[in-house]
C-alpha cells in the first residue's frame, strides 16, 4: 500500500503527522527487514481469504447457473401444478383454461437428455406452448417472429437451440440434432436459434432445446401428460385464495405448490452441502487469523526496545496502537489482495468439483465459468483485513498498554504470557464445556452442531499452551536426570518463549486435529457405504437405461425388452424398480416402486422395524419402507401412518421398516409394485435387478441382454454387482474430492502458520543463540538444539492433536453428518490417519526449524550478538 492511502487513514491529526509518518516508516522498515516473516503472513492471510473466496465463488457460480437456467426455464412462474410423480394430464390443463378460466397458466414438459453430438453434456428439453408463454419466460426466438412460431408449431415443427449449443453440436439451423432419450437416439430438427438479449439470458439458455409442448411430449414419450403447469399468482391473501381455488378444481393427486427456482430451491436442496463447505472454509480463515496474530505479536515483541523508546520519548499509547494496527491493515490488505487472486483461481477449479458433486447427488447443472461478484470480493476484503486487525488487536493493545519502561523488557512479555497460559486454559475449558453443552442440546440443527464443533476445536486450541507447558516441564524433569544440559536447555527454551510457542502450537494442533477429524469422517463414511453396498447389492446383474445423473436411473425400459430379459432361462428371480419423484409440502422424496424377489430381502439393513412381518405388510400393500435420512428428517418411526400423494389422492401407509441408505439425502420411500400399480397411473420400469441361476456366467447373460435390447433399439446399462459397487464408490470418492481438497488447503494454511511462528521464535532468539555460540556451542550442536526444539513442538502438537482430532471426528460423524443428511455412519478409527497426522506435525515442525537452525548455525556469534 502506498503512503498516501496509508497515512491519511490511520494518521493522527495534521499537526503531529510528521511523527506518525516517522513511526509508520519505522514500522515498515521493520517489516522490510523481515521478508520471510512478512511473506509467510501475507501468504497465510492469502490462503485463508483465498479458500473462503474460492468456496464462495464456486457455490455462487453454481447457484447462479442454477438460477439463470431456472429463470430461463422456470420463468416468472410463482406456482406450479404438479402431479404425484406422474405429471399432469393434458386434459386437466385444458379444463383449467377453458372451464376454469385459470390464467396465466402455461404447460411445461421438461427433461434432461444427452446427445451423441455433445458427449458429456446435459441438454434440457423444454416443451412449452408458445401461445401461452407470454407472461412466463423470456425465450427469444431468432429470425422473423412469425416464421419462428411457424417453425415451432407448424408441420414437423422442430427445436430452437441456444446459439452456442447449436454451434458446439456442429451446425446451425436446418440440421438435425441427435438426442439420447431413455437409451434411444432420436433426431430433432433444429429450426432456429434462441437469441439472448444479454449475457445472463445467454447463459441461462445454454444447453436448452426449446420445442413445442406437443413435439416435446412425443420426443420424450410423455404424450398425454405435462410435467407441470406454470401459474402466476399474486402475492399475499389474494394469491392464497386463488391457489386454494385452483387446488379445488384439481383432481386427486395434483397439487399447486410454490415454484422452484431463483436459488431458493437450490439453497434448500444444497443447504447441508453448502454449510459443510462454508464451515471448512471458515476454518481455513481461522488459521489465517492465527497467522496474522503470530506475525503481529512477533513484530511487536521484536520491536519492544524501539517501542519502549518511542513511549519514553512521548509517543502516546494511541499512536502505538495505531502503528501496530496500521501494519496489520497493510499486511491484511496485501494478503487479501493476493488471496482474492488466489481465490478466483482456486474457485475456477473448485466449481468443477462442486458441479460434479451436485450432478452426482442432486440435479443436473451446467456451470459456465465463474465471475466473482463485487459483494463476494468485498466479503473477502472484510474477512481478510478484519481478521488481520482483530488478530493484531491483542499485541497492539499489549504494546500500548505496557508502562513505557517495561515495554523495553522481553521478560515482562514472557511473564505476561506465562500468566496468560492458565487463563487461556480456563477459557479453553469453558469453550470445550460450551461445545459439549451444545452437543447435549436436543437439537437437530446443523448450525448448532457446527457451533459445538468450533467450541471443541477452540477449546482444545486454548488448552494447548497449558498442555504444552505441562508436557515440557515433565519432559524437562525427566531429561534432567538422563540427558545432558543441552537437551534441558532446548526443552526449557520452549517454555521460556511461551508467547511465541503457544500460538504456534495451538495452530498446529488445530490443523492436525482437523486433518484427523476429516480423515476419520471420510474413512468412516466410506467404510459405511462400502458395507452398505455389500448388503444392498444382492442381485447379480443390474439393468437401467443410461441416464445423466450418475446416481440414479432415468427413463423407463422398453416393456418388450423387460419381458425378453425376464424370460431368459438364466434368470432365477428378479427385482423391478420404478422410480418417481414424489412431491409434498416437506420437499418431496424419491418414491421407488419395488417388486421384491424373496432373495432380495437380505438387501435391507434395517435400523428400525423390518423382519418377516415387515415384508408381509409391504407386499400386502399397507406397509412402506422408508430410508433412514427421510425418517430422520420427518421424524417418522416404525408404526407411524404417513400420507403419500398418489395419482388417486393422498393415501396413508404404515412405516414398517426404516432401512440404512446412503443413496439419497432427500430420502426414499419404497412401495410394493402392486400398490404402485393400483394407486399410480404410470407404469414402466426404470431398472431391474436379476438373480441368476447357479453356475451361470454373468458376462454371457449381460451380453445376451444387451443384444436383446439393441434389437429393440434401446441401449442399456448392464452392470454386475461388482461394477455397480465400484461405480458407486467412484461417485463417493468424487463427492469427497472437494472435502479432501479443503482439508489439504486448511492444512496448508496451518502449516504456513507453524512455519512462520517457529521461524519467528528461532530468529527472535538470535542473541540468545549468539550467546550460546559465544559460550562454545558448535554450529552442529546449535543446529541439533533448534531442530530438537521444533521437532519436539511438532511431536507434542501431534500428540495433543490426537484427542482433539478424535473428538472432532466423533462430532463430524455422529452429529454433523447425522443432522445434515440424516444417516448414521459407523465411526471407524483408522490408525493410519492418526499416524499420518503425528508424522505430518513432526515433519512440518522439523522443516520449520530447519531454516532458522541453518541460518543461526552459519551466523558468526559476534554478528548475532550485535544489537540491531
Amino acid at each position, binding site marked *: 500500500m502506498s503512503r498516501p492511502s496509508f497515512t491519511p487513514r490511520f494518521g493522527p491529526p495534521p499537526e503531529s503527522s510528521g511523527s506518525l509518518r516517522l513511526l509508520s516508516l519505522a514500522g515498515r522498515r521493520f517489516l522490510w527487514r523481515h521478508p520471510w516473516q512478512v511473506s509467510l503472513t501475507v501468504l497465510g492471510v492469502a490462503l485463508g481469504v483465498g479458500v473462503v473466496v474460492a468456496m464462495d465463488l464456486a457455490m455462487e457460480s453454481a447457484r447462479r447457473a442454477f438460477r439463470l437456467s431456472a429463470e430461463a426455464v422456470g420463468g416468472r412462474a410463482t406456482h406450479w401444478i404438479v402431479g404425484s410423480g406422474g405429471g399432469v394430464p393434458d386434459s386437466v390443463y385444458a379444463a383449467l383454461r377453458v372451464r376454469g378460466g385459470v390464467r396465466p397458466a402455461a404447460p411445461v414438459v421438461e427433461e434432461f437428455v444427452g446427445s451423441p453430438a455433445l458427449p458429456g453434456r446435459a441438454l434440457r428439453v423444454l416443451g412449452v406452448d408458445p401461445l401461452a408463454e407470454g407472461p412466463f419466460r423470456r425465450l427469444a426466438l431468432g429470425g422473423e*417472429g412469425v416464421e419462428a412460431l411457424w417453425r415451432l*408449431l407448424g408441420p414437423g415443427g422442430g427445436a430452437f437451440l441456444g446459439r452456442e449449443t447449436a454451434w458446439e453440436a456442429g451446425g446451425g439451423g436446418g440440421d438435425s440434432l441427435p438426442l439420447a432419450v431413455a437409451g434411444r437416439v432420436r*433426431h430433432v430438427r433444429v429450426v432456429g436459434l434462441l437469441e439472448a438479449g444479454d449475457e445472463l439470458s445467454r447463459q441461462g439458455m445454454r444447453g436448452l432445446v426449446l*420445442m413445442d409442448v*406437443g*413435439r416435446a411430449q412425443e420426443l420424450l414419450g410423455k404424450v398425454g401428460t405435462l410435467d407441470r403447469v406454470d401459474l402466476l399468482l399474486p402475492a399475499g391473501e389474494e394469491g392464497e385464495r386463488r391457489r386454494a381455488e385452483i387446488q379445488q378444481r384439481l383432481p386427486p393427486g395434483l397439487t399447486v405448490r410454490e415454484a422452484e427456482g431463483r436459488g431458493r430451491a437450490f439453497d434448500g436442496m444444497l443447504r447441508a452441502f453448502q454449510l459443510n463447505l462454508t464451515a471448512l472454509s471458515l476454518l481455513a480463515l481461522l488459521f489465517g487469523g492465527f497467522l496474522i496474530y503470530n506475525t503481529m505479536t512477533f513484530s511487536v515483541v521484536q520491536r519492544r526496545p524501539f517501542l519502549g523508546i518511542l513511549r519514553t520519548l512521548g509517543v502516546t499509547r494511541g499512536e502505538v496502537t495505531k502503528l501496530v494496527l496500521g501494519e496489520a491493515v497493510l499486511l491484511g490488505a496485501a494478503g487479501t489482495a493476493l488471496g482474492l487472486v488466489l481465490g478466483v483461481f482456486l474457485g475456477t477449479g473448485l466449481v468443477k468439483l462442486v458441479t460434479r458433486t451436485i450432478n452426482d447427488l442432486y440435479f443436473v447443472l451446467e456451470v459456465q465459468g465463474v465471475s466473482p461478484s463485487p459483494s463476494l470480493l468485498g466479503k473477502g476484503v472484510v474477512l481478510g483485513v478484519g481478521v488481520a486487525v482483530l488478530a493484531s488487536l491483542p499485541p497492539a493493545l499489549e504494546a500500548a498498554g505496557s508502562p513505557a519502561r517495561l515495554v523495553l523488557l522481553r521478560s515482562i512479555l514472557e511473564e505476561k504470557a506465562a500468566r496468560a497460559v492458565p487463563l487461556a486454559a480456563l477459557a479453553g475449558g469453558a469453550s470445550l464445556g460450551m461445545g459439549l453443552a451444545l452437543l447435549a442440546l436436543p437439537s437437530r440443527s446443523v448450525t448448532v452442531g457446527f457451533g459445538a464443533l468450533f467450541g471443541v476445536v477452540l477449546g482444545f486450541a486454548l488448552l494447548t499452551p497449558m498442555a504444552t507447558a505441562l508436557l515440557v516441564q515433565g519432559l524437562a524433569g525427566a531429561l534432567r536426570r538422563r540427558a545432558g544440559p543441552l537437551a534441558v536447555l532446548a526443552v526449557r527454551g520452549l517454555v521460556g518463549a511461551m508467547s511465541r510457542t503457544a500460538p504456534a502450537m495451538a495452530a498446529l494442533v488445530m490443523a492436525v486435529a482437523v486433518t484427523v477429524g476429516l480423515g476419520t469422517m471420510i474413512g468412516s463414511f466410506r467404510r459405511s457405504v462400502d458395507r452398505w453396498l455389500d448388503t444392498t447389492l444382492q442381485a447379480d446383474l443390474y439393468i437401467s437405461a443410461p441416464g445423466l445423473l450418475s446416481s440414479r436411473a432415468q427413463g423407463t425400459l422398453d416393456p418388450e425388452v423387460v419381458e425378453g430379459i425376464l424370460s431368459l432361462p438364466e434368470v432365477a428371480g428378479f427385482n423391478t424398480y420404478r422410480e418417481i419423484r414424489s412431491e409434498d409440502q416437506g420437499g418431496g422424496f424419491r418414491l421407488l416402486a419395488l417388486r421384491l424377489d424373496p432373495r432380495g430381502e437380505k438387501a435391507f439393513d434395517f435400523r428400525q422395524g423390518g423382519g418377516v412381518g415387515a415384508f408381509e405388510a409391504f407386499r400386502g400393500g399397507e406397509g412402506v419402507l422408508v430410508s433412514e435420512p427421510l425418517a430422520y428428517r420427518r421424524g417418522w418411526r416404525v408404526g407411524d401412518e404417513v400420507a403419500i400423494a398418489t395419482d388417486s389422492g393422498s393415501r396413508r401407509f404404515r412405516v414398517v421398516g426404516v432401512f440404512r441408505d446412503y443413496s439419497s439425502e432427500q430420502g426414499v420411500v419404497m412401495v410394493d409394485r402392486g400398490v404402485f400399480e393400483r394407486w399410480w397411473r404410470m407404469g414402466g420400469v426404470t431398472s431391474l435387478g436379476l438373480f441368476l441361476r447357479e453356475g451361470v456366467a454373468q458376462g454371457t447373460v449381460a451380453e445376451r441382454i444387451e443384444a436383446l435390447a439393441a434389437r429393440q433399439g434401446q441401449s442399456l446399462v448392464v452392470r454386475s454387482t461388482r461394477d455397480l459397487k465400484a461405480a458407486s464408490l467412484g461417485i463417493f470418492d468424487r463427492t469427497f474430492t472437494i472435502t479432501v481438497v479443503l482439508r489439504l488447503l486448511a492444512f496448508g494454511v496451518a502449516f504456513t502458520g507453524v512455519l512462520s511462528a517457529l521461524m519467528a521464535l528461532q530468529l527472535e532468539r538470535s542473541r540468545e543463540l549468539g550467546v550460546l555460540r559465544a559460550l562454545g556451542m558448535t554450529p552442529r550442536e546449535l543446529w541439533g538444539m533448534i531442530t530438537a526444539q521444533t521437532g519436539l513442538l511438532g511431536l507434542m502438537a501431534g500428540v495433543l492433536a490426537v484427542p482433539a482430532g478424535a473428538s472432532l471426528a466423533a462430532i463430524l460423524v455422529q452429529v454433523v453428518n447425522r443432522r445434515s443428511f440424516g444417516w448414521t455412519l459407523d465411526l471407524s478409527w483408522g490408525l493410519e490417519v492418526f499416524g499420518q497426522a503425528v508424522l505430518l506435525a513432526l515433519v512440518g515442525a522439523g522443516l520449520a526449524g530447519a531454516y532458522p537452525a541453518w541460518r543461526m548455525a552459519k551466523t558468526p556469534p559476534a554478528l548475532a550478538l550485535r544489537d540491531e
Partner: protein
Amino acid sequence: MKSLPSWGMSALVAAAVLLFSLVRARGPSPDQGRWAATSLPVAQVLGEGEVAGFERALEPRPFDFPADHGPHVSFRNEWWYLTGNLEDPSGTPFGFQFTVFRAGLDPRFARRLPPEGKASEERPDTPPPGEGPGEGGPGPASPWSASQIYLAHWTVTDGGRKRFYPHERFARGALGLAGAQGTPFRVWVEDWSLTAGGEEDLFPLTLQVREGGTALQLEFTALKPPVLQGEGGLSRKGPEPGNASYYYSFSRLKASGVLVLDGDSIPVQGLAWMDREWSTSALSPGQVGWDWFALQLDHGFELMWYHLRRADGTPDPFSQGIWVDPQGAARTLAFGEVELQATDTWASPVDGRRYPARWRLSFPGEDLLLEVVPLIPDQELVLSFRYWEGAVRVSGRHRGRPVAGVGYVELVGYGEGQGRKAP
C-alpha cells in the same frame, strides 16, 4: 380494414411477433422493441407463412348456409367479427367488439379434409399421421399437435365513464382449447365463445366472454339476411388473381344481454354487425393499412366502406363498400363512390402516434353526408397487435333529411414508419 384477408393473418402474425418481441425486449411498452408488431410492413408480414397448398379465392362461389358459418380450413385465414353499439336502460352508450381469427398452420392438412363447413371440432385438430417429432420414431402423436391457431380480441367501450377495456386470447386448436365447428355452429377460444342457437340455425347466436371482473353475454338475432360483399361474395383486394377473399356480412343484428363491468351487471341492448371472411391471399405490395367503416343508420340503411391506404398516402383503387336498404337489398360500392375526409386527429398516449379521429363522409350517389365521431377518443387496442377500433356516432343528412346512427370504425397501419423500419 378487417375485410382484408391479410388482416387476420397480419394480426396473428403480428401477435406472434409481438409475443416474442415482448420476451425479447422486455420493455414496459411493447412498442419500444425493434419487433413491435406494427413495425412490420403488412406486405412483408403476408409474405411469410406457408401459402402454397392452401386454396385461393379465385372466383365467385355459391354460399351454403348454415355450413358456411363454420370454418373453411382449406383456406389459410378466417375470421368471425362482431361489433356493436349497446345502451343500458338509462341510455348510457356502450360499444363492443369480438373477433376470432383462425390461421392454418399446415396446408397438407387442409387438402385432406372435405371441402369446407364439415370440419368438426376434432378433425382439424388432428395432425396428419407420420408427422411426429422429426425422424425420431413412430410414437403416438401428441394431442397438442394442431393445424390451426386462434386469436381472439374482445373490447368494451364504456361511453358513460369514457373507458375502454381491450382483451385478447391465443390458443391452438387442440385439446378443446380453441376451435371452430360448422354444425352446430360454435367458435371458441378457451372460455370465450360464440355459439349458434340450434343445429341448423345460426340465430339466436350467443356470445359469452369474461375476463376478470368484466364479462359480456349477448344474444343476437338477425334483422336482415346476410349480404354478399364484392362480386357475389368474392371480395378482391388487389390486381393479382387470388388476392381476394370470400366475404359476407350480417349488417343488422339485434343484440341484447348483460354487460358486467367491474362487478356491476348492466342490462344492455342495441345493434350489432357481423362480418365473416376467409381467404389465403396476401395483401398487394404498397398497401399499408386501411380505414373501415360499418355504419347503421336510424332509418334502416347500412353503409360499409373500406378505404385501403397506399404507402404514398393515396387511397387504393381496390377500396370498396356496400349499401344496404331497409329491406335488406344490397348494392356494392366501387372506388370513388364514397369520399372520406378526416377532420381531426387523436394522439395515442402510449407513444404519440396519430390516428384520424373524426370524419366527413360523403356518398353523392345517395345524397348522403355524414359526420362520424368516435364515442370516446381512446379506443386503441394496445395488445399483441396495435390498432384502433371503436364505436362511433354518426349524424348528417340523407336525401335532404336529417339522419343519425351508430357504427364501428377500424384504423390499421397508423404509426408505422416512425423510426421503426422492419429489418
